[in-house]
């Protein structure tokens, strides 16, 4: 199997490295390093087996949609059906899920509507099995990483067992989610980076190239699943800078050689991942070629690419003319079409006139007629009259086709954005007043030029008040059908909020032209989709009164996540870390910081240590431990600065690092005098984590029956914290 193959390579690394280092004598060979981690292959086999067994145990249960499976399963189906959708994460994870489903015979017909829907005859095991497979690989990866960093078999075993027996990691690996995929690539990148570091004495050898490029591949994978992959990119980047700095200081290395080192890293860690990343987007857009639920989030030009979209392969009149029937799309991402309907603003919200909103879906109520400010619709529809084009700087009126009211604004405050003016539909049968006049302008154009459908960016200025028509992006309450607010902003600023383009354009008097000219280039599509994703991500703001998970909750295992079931009769799965493991991790982090600081101070103070000790301390505590601790920090601290909604499962990448730190740290003193007590402590650690796993395993593998607050429940007495809800 794959991990075993990786392990085989890993084995030759440390042995050969030691052989190579001794003659140089660069770092003193310690007692620890000289002892060959005998039996590491057998141990690897054991942990891999246990890992797979624990992750695949009761995998089909529960046979219904759990938690976010409703999103990612659905998106997998979209790939199988090739319909276009929008998501805030990059596509790789969902493509792989789709691929796994496709290969295992899932036909993409299950709707994944809401958590709790039963799968019935649909084949969902392929997708879950794929995620569980990647989730199982985390354990051997962590094992090999720690083995490489500390050269200690017990340390690697402790790390592996901590992860095997962590209920949280098991739960997160058993469902159709992005997290196992993300963590697979993340740990893959860390492992390859560590392997590559230990090949540092044989630069440009085959294994060196292999590990370096594997690091790059895994980075691309991690970035391609979720943007959180950026943190591991940062970790690898810092490590690379450190290595290069080291090489630069080595005066025996010529500048040419240094240049080679530098270029090799640019190639493997920047160009290779970038190419892969772009390639996966190319695949994404090639696969999703049918119109679907994500169309409205993208610009008109983009939509013309999708089969089934009303802009696909259409031909419409090129220049805007009076009498045309049009739809107008706001240029902000996910901006919506200018919309109105037979409903008035409620009492107390501005003037009691007809609502004007922005609406994301295509609808007859999005149609508007362009009129001159001084003549009526009837004249325009007369087939004998000549066509008159709208020009930049003209003063026009817009009549809502369904209700025959004019787009109107006045100095009443807008419903939500109080500093803006209200926009309404006003008048009867197209007759209104002078507040219906708008000046139409194209951004960056001179007066008198024609206006192009789809391509011109339009600004509508209200003549009477000087304000600009825009969409604030805020959602109206129930009375506005939860559509988006449209206002007239008095702040004359160039933002996409106040820019529009014409999308549909119907005018029987004009010749139609094909819209292939619109076709955006791949680079444009790539940029646009990233803009939309970033906006989407920052748009995930917690609502005012919502109780959300806070980053400080996570390391203390304060609160879990309900994956399935609420009531006593439901099949319940609860994502919660194994408390013994997590609290041990937390304790270790504190202890590590203490030791690292004191070691650093001691070394700085120049305390007389044997050079052996000194090398050992600085190598294990500061270098190797530092890498892992840095990984933990990079995957945890940024969440404190994020404004978006956070969930407990965001902590799991950081948790992998803290588990590795625990494994490494507790084996630190191993090899010196107190071997027996150490071994006892380790055995104790293993026993504790497995025992608590035994206690808490129903959280992952599912439970039915009374809640833990009920004394008759088998979990009674295990609710050690009031905030746990199982």
């Amino acid at each position, binding site marked *: 199997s794959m991990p075993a193959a990786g392990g085989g390579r890993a084995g030759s690394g440390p042995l050969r490295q030691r052989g190579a280092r001794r003659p140089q004598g660069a770092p003193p060979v310690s007692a620890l390093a000289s002892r060959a981690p005998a039996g590491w292959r057998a141990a690897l086999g054991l942990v891999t087996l246990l890992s797979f067994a624990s992750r695949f145990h009761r995998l089909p249960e529960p046979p219904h949609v759990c938690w976010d499976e409703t999103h990612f399963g659905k998106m997998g189906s979209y790939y199988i059906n090739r319909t276009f959708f929008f998501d805030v994460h990059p596509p790789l994870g969902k493509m792989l899920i789709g691929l796994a489903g496709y290969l295992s015979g899932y036909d993409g017909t299950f709707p994944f509507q809401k958590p709790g829907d039963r799968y019935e005859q649909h084949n969902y095991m392929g997708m879950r099995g794929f995620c569980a497979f990647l989730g199982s690989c985390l354990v051997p990866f962590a094992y090999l990483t720690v083995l490489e960093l500390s050269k200690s078999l017990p340390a690697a075993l402790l790390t592996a067992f901590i992860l095997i027996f962590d209920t949280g990691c098991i739960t997160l690996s058993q469902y159709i989610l992005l997290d196992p995929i993300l963590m697979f690539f993340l740990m893959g990148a860390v492992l390859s980076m560590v392997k590559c570091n230990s090949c540092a004495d044989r630069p440009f050898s085959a294994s060196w190239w292999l590990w370096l490029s594997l690091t790059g591949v895994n980075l691309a994978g991690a970035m391609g699943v979720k943007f959180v992959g950026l943190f591991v990119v940062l970790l690898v980047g810092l490590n690379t800078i450190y290595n290069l*700095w080291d090489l*630069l*200081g080595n*005066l025996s290395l010529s*500048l040419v050689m240094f240049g080679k080192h530098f270029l090799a890293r640019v190639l493997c860690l920047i160009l290779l991942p970038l190419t892969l990343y772009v390639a996966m987007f190319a695949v994404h857009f090639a696969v999703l070629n049918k119109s679907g639920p994500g169309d409205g989030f993208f610009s008109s030009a983009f939509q013309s690419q999708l089969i089934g979209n009303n802009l696909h392969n259409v031909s419409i009149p090129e220049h805007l003319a009076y009498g045309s029937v049009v739809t107008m799309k706001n240029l902000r991402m996910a901006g919506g079409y200018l919309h109105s309907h037979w409903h008035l603003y*409620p*009492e107390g919200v501005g003037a009691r006139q007809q609502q004007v909103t922005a609406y994301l879906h295509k609808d007859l109520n999005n149609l508007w007629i362009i009129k001159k400010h001084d003549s009526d619709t009837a004249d325009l529809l007369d087939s004998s009259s000549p066509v008159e084009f709208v020009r930049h700087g003209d003063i026009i009126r817009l009549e809502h086709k369904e209700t025959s009211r004019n787009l109107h604004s006045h100095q009443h405050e807008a419903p939500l*954005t*109080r*500093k803006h003016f209200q926009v309404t539909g006003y008048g009867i049968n197209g007759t209104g007043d002078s507040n219906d006049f708008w000046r139409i302008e194209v951004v960056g154009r001179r007066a008198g030029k024609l206006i192009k459908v789809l391509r011109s960016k339009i600004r509508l200025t209200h003549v009477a008040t000087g304000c600009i028509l825009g969409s604030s992006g805020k959602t109206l309450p*129930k*009375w506005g059908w939860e559509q988006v607010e449209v206002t007239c*902003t008095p*702040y004359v600023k160039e933002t996409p909020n106040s820019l529009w383009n014409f999308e549909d354009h119907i005018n029987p008097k004009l010749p139609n032209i094909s819209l292939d000219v619109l076709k955006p280039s791949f680079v444009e599509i790539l940029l646009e989709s990233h803009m939309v994703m970033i906006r989407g991500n920052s748009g995930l703001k917690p609502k*005012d*009164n919502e*109780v959300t998970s806070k980053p400080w909750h996570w390391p203390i295992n304060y*609160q879990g996540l309900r994956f399935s079931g*609420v009531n006593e009769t439901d099949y319940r799965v609860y994502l919660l870390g194994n408390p013994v493991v997590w609290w041990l991790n937390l304790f270790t982090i504190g202890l590590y910081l203490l030791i690292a600081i004191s070691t650093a*101070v001691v070394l*700085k*103070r*120049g305390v007389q240590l044997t050079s052996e000790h000194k090398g050992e301390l600085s190598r294990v505590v500061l270098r190797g431990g530092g890498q892992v601790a840095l990984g933990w920090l990079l995957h945890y601290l940024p969440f404190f*600065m994020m*404004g978006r909604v956070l969930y407990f499962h965001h902590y799991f990448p950081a948790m992998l690092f803290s588990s590795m730190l625990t494994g490494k740290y507790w084996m630190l003193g191993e090899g010196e005098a107190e071997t027996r007590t150490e071994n006892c402590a380790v055995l104790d650690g293993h026993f504790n984590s497995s025992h608590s796993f035994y206690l808490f395993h129903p959280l992952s593998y599912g439970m039915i029956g009374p809640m833990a607050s009920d004394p008759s429940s088998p979990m009674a007495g295990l609710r050690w914290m*009031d*905030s746990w*809800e199982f």
Partner: protein
Amino acid sequence: VGSKKQGRPGQTFDRMLGFLKKPVVVTAEINLSLVALTVVGLMSRLWGLSYPRAVVFDEVYYGQFVSLYMKRIFFVDDSGPPLGHMLLALGGYLGGFDGNFLWNRIGAEYSTNVPVCSLRFLPALAGALCIPLAYQILVELRFSHCAALGAALLILLENSLITQSRFMLLESILIFFILLAVLSYLKFYNLQRHRVKYMGLFTYMLLLVIAGLHFWHMLGDQNLSNVSLVCHFLARGLTLLIIPVATYLSFFYVHLTLLYRSGPHDQIMTSAFQASLEGGLARITQGQPLEVAYGSQITLRNVLGKPMQCWLHSHTNTYPIRYENGRGSSHQQQVTCYPFKDVNNWWIVKDPGMQQLVVSNPPRPVRHGHIVQLVHGITTRYLNTHDVAAPLSPHSQEVSCYIDYNISMPAQNLWRVEIVNRESDTDVWKTILSEVRFVHVNTSAVLKLSGASLPEWGYRQLEVVGEKLSKGYHQSMVWNVEEHRYGKSQEQKEREVELHSPTRMDISKNLSFMAKFTELQWKILTLKNEDTEHKYSSSALDWITMDTNIAYWLHPTSGAQIHLLGNVCTWASANVAAVVYTCLSLWYLIRRRRKIYDIPEDAWQLWVSAGQICVGGWVVNYLPFFLMEKTLFLYHYLPALTFQILLIPIVLQHLSDHLCRSLLSKSMFSALTVAWFSSVCFAYRTFSPVTYGEPLSVAELKDLRWKDSWNILIRKQGH
């Protein structure tokens, strides 16, 4: 002194060059030039301070707080701790301001009782003193007096700093204290960290880091004993941590002592805090019984206070049988949260086992864990919740006042009182002080304010629900008793009269300073301003290139106007200096790594330490704005800019000392420097009319519009 005036840059510079050549003369003349700089600085900042005699830009904002200080009325401002406001108020106090001015419009003429000059004096003084501070900092960084003089002159001729100093605004005070702190640290006396705005915090962090670095180097010094190291560490801890914290607390102490009257921001504070202010809630709550007992009549305020403060409320109207979306309700009496005081906010605490609604003698207090019923005072219906979806939050339970329709929907009106901030499990439920959760006995739902406001049928009052999935602690689920009295009337008619009468009884309460401080600090940090749009707001990226300006004031008839607009030349050079510094540092660093030393070791140390302060100061005062979500203005950049300006002479001196090796290139470089400095002076002259508000013709104004993105107000003519 006269020769130092900005009008004659060439002469000034000649003299500077003279210092360079004859070091002995320098020492004699330094003090003089420092004095001269200070005097010129004072003139540039204080000249015609009371013009314009009208509200200029953010004076409209700070002015209200000065007035509130004068009247001793409590307020909360989220822009920062109170020192800045207090200093402004001190100006008003010294000028004999009585606080009577309506701060409502920029450009409004000041009435005669407003001492404009003294209100603006302190910021202007602080702004002027920045000039000698800049000089001193460069001297302390061990740069030449010539460079120090250059730094001071650049600060002196920076239009944006002048504009910002000349009005009742906080930035100049902030910059003054930041520079003072840097200087103090450099001089290694004790550090007086004052905080005017929270931006000061970033510089403070920088100093902590630098102090940490210095200490780290000291650790490596094997000559120092462990004991002396510990002493060093403690001394630094004391000066850098304890003194600032103590000072900070003392500002709040003064602030809270000064402001003891209730005012416009009362409602965002807790009931306990409000009760400690004179007037307002204290007038009502003074003399209430402390312990809630069975039979007590109470009003319950939600602790969250968002979207607005409100009290648990009910009225005779019922929930509509069907909502607009087709879901059904129990059709029982509505329970809401109502943002105004009302007789319908009164509830009676009833013992489920007894019928009486009055307080027995002696009163039986309610304790943590007791089970009670809550009876609505006016309608005598019981607070109830059941497994019916709430009107706007369908995942939660509806809360109602129970009406027996004789259908199979029994009353479920028992609630367990849980005191959140209890000290022991037998605590008594106390008025104002206790924060209480009501847990429904049958369903374990918790009484919660959902924050949504009900449609027409609920009179747009706020929705109250029973939250089944109560995840931990959230303020929306916590309530406290605000008004309270012991009920005396058993009859409903009498009780209604009693409910309508004002509360009155005895005991008063006080809050400790630390409790008040914690609450106020927390509110300042969490308070959010809603509208984030302003005509002159800008993004942090615009600042570097000064693509934006702020119109501060416009004369109602003449074209005179005041803008926050920097010295174009200085801003550009500051950017260039930062880029040059970064590139040169990288170059040196890489070369040093290859053991090639381009400059002597002490020059390198000088270069690094200057960079730590100047580039570090720029970074910590600028980059955090990219993470902030508040409305940003150009003036937020001024502290960062000050540090960047200090970098210019540093880079110039370095270039001339180490890169110009021949005599010819040195003199070429000096000539270029002189030319550059004259252009700085020219830019200052050009923009000084909009700095000081001198009248300008339309053509002159048009000429000033060097960038299209600048918003210079030009009146249309002939209309």
